[in-house]
């Protein structure tokens, strides 16, 4: 597993913090971007019968965006836009973004691209990732188009790494095909917490997010929700909790075939030499 960069911590804290970080880094948690940088290429698999995919992708993106430390040379306030690319099929199935329903600070940022074909959508995603004036790029593609193969997704990952613009690709009604995404989520809606004043009403959105493949993290299942402007995640307790300092992620419950599992182990072995996710090109 990866070791976080500890050079910035004061000397005395290193002993405790090192063990703590090592234990926690095994798992993803909200706000991780503050330490490890942004998750550059994520995929969110979701059914087209719900808007949970777009909602969770936005929540994850905003979580990374808010928690990424601002560099010395960057502006104090991030005024960059957000590119939201949809294929026409995806827009037909799950609708187009509604300005009044977006999070408050996203409303004036969204630039929407409606692509006729998946090829056009991939082109738009790549151009968006090349653009320094975008905070992140959200894509929505329906099904498993032939053009979105491993090569295409690898291409997106590389562009994203090179320019440091995160990509959140929502896959509607898609099989878990081959992809080079750094984090792959499966998201479904889950009953929302009851609002304070009207228990009969739907509450703040909540999603069950299953991280089934991640580079540098152990898979797991969370319930994500909105905790007053920040993303909160609670572990699902009905599943067996593996030991935190477990060495090999291969023993994790993985809904994958044996071939995919071996590929995953090879990747995690390689991840030991890499500086974790969020490396910049």
């Amino acid at each position, binding site marked *: 597993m990866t070791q976080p960069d500890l050079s910035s911590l004061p000397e005395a804290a290193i002993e405790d913090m090192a063990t703590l970080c090592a234990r926690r880094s095994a798992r993803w948690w909200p706000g991780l971007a503050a330490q490890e940088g942004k998750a550059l290429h994520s995929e969110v698999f979701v059914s087209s019968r719900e*808007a949970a995919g777009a909602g969770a992708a*936005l929540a994850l993106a905003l979580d990374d965006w808010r928690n990424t430390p601002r560099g010395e040379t960057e502006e104090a306030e991030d005024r960059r836009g957000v590119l939201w690319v949809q294929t026409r099929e995806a827009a037909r199935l799950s609708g187009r*973004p509604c300005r009044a329903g977006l999070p408050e600070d996203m409303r004036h940022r969204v*630039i929407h691209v409606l692509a*006729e074909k998946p090829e056009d959508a991939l*082109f738009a995603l790549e151009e968006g990732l090349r653009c320094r004036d975008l905070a992140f790029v959200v894509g929505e593609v329906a099904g498993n188009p032939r053009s979105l193969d491993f090569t295409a997704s690898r291409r997106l990952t590389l562009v994203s790494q090179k320019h440091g613009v995160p990509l959140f690709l929502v896959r509607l009604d898609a099989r878990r095909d081959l992809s080079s995404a750094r984090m792959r989520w499966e998201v479904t809606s889950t009953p929302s917490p009851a609002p304070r004043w009207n228990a009969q009403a739907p509450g703040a959105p909540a999603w069950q997010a299953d991280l089934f493949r991640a580079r540098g993290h152990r898979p797991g299942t969370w319930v994500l929700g909105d905790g007053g402007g920040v993303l909160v995640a609670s572990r699902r307790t009905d599943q067996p909790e593996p030991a935190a300092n477990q060495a090999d992620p291969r023993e994790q419950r993985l809904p994958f075939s044996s071939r995919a599992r071996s590929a995953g182990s090879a990747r995690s072995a390689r991840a030991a030499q890499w500086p974790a996710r969020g490396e910049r090109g």
Partner: protein
Amino acid sequence: MPCPPHLASSRRILSLWLPALAMDRWRLAMGEAGAALDAGPLVLIADTAHGPRIEALNGIAMQAGARSGTMLADARTLCPAIATAPADPAADLAFLEKLALWGRRWGPWSAMDAPDGLLIDVTAVPHLYGGEQHLLADVAKAFARRKLAVRAAIAPTAGAAWALSHHGPPNAIVGGAGSHVEEAIARALADLPVAALRLDQDVLTVLRRLGLKRLGELGTIGRDAIQRRFRNRKSPAANPLVRMDQLLGRVPEPLLPVVQQDMPLVQRRLMEPIRHRPLLDQVLGDLAADMVRELEGRGEGARRLEIGLWRVDGEVVVRRLELAAATREAAHICRLFSAKLDDVDAGFGIEMVRLRASWAEPLALEQGDIEAAAEAHGTSLAACIDRLTVRLGEKAVSRPVPFASHIPERAQRWQRPLDPEPASQGELAFHQRPLKLLDKAEKIAVLYATPDGYPKRFRWRGQVHEVARVEGPERIAPEWWRERGNARLRDYYRIEDDAGRRYWIYRLGIVGDGRGGLPDWYLQGLCA
């Protein structure tokens, strides 16, 4: 605000009136071919809803009884031999614009006085011609050389100069230096008709009925009386007092100068016609570099570019490109055009290529080497949007903006991504809105307690959802000022089903509202 008398007195305005502009221009355009027609009665006509109307005419037609503004049929009854040619007011205006620029030979500043006049500021110029008389003589000579009829006058104000050139003696000059300019103008213009005040026709009618025929008579009945009669008229063309003050120089009269703007244009004439794409790309690269240099010299960036390809057989292929923001990057221009030039048919070859920036905006100078920087730091938003629109089309890239409407699908509009957001009142966020709206609300079958109970269960896209939690209704009435009278209201519910999926559905109408049968249910939005 009255302007100081010394300022008014120091200005000299030359007014030129071309009484037969349209006819003169027609003669110049036709040349020898028009001489035969011009020998008889000739009129220029414009088509109206009631038939052709005479816009301009030559001297013979005038003697035959035709008048400008009458119908051609009426003139033909007087003189059946009248020949016609089409009038072209747009070209006349363009010609006048060119004349305004040409007229700067007599002064540094000129304005158009549409449809057939020019105003030129000749302050402190006449001594170069040896006096104002000689200046006017030079004007007459220059216009005679161009075969244009002209009447000219010089006065301290634009109003007075206009009045003299249209209604005064030929080559009139009024006022000189000194503080008694106002009296001088008033004295010189006292005998001119009130039409010299540049008033609307109905105002002239009123003045004629009042018995005021000359400018000098306006002063005889007292200012208060005229003020009372025209107290509601604010526009200068409808108020004789304002016009009189402008004429005497008591109030300033702003005039809009004609400013010449030439578009940046670069072209390449090719020694050998080219037929292949790589060569065209080479030429395009050279042109783009030239254009960038041209724009850089002006401190501008191109917003719209047009490329014209002249083929050997005379065909011209034009491709147009509009950019999201002003740009001055040759590589960016080439890249965008290369997508547009894919379907160009070169035929027997292209012998000239011309690139024109028909719309340019100021753009500050920047550090060079942008494209190399783009490799390292990414492209700018404007460049990204340009690339997207060139490949995906103008409509594909847009930004949602609020619109003042209660109907959810109307409450949001899509506009071009870099345009400024329209001013809006802000949203009244009493109610939550879904994250996504379907393009068209989909009909669902709902089990509910009539007439207005909560939905219990519904079927959408072939699957049944059990409703677990409901909030609503939020009633949205139809926009009666826009929709038909029988449009039904909508009751919106935010619901969550047993699996936690959240939707936004509405019932169209209620039972017994007299606007149709049982209400239908629709699913319009998907909540996050």
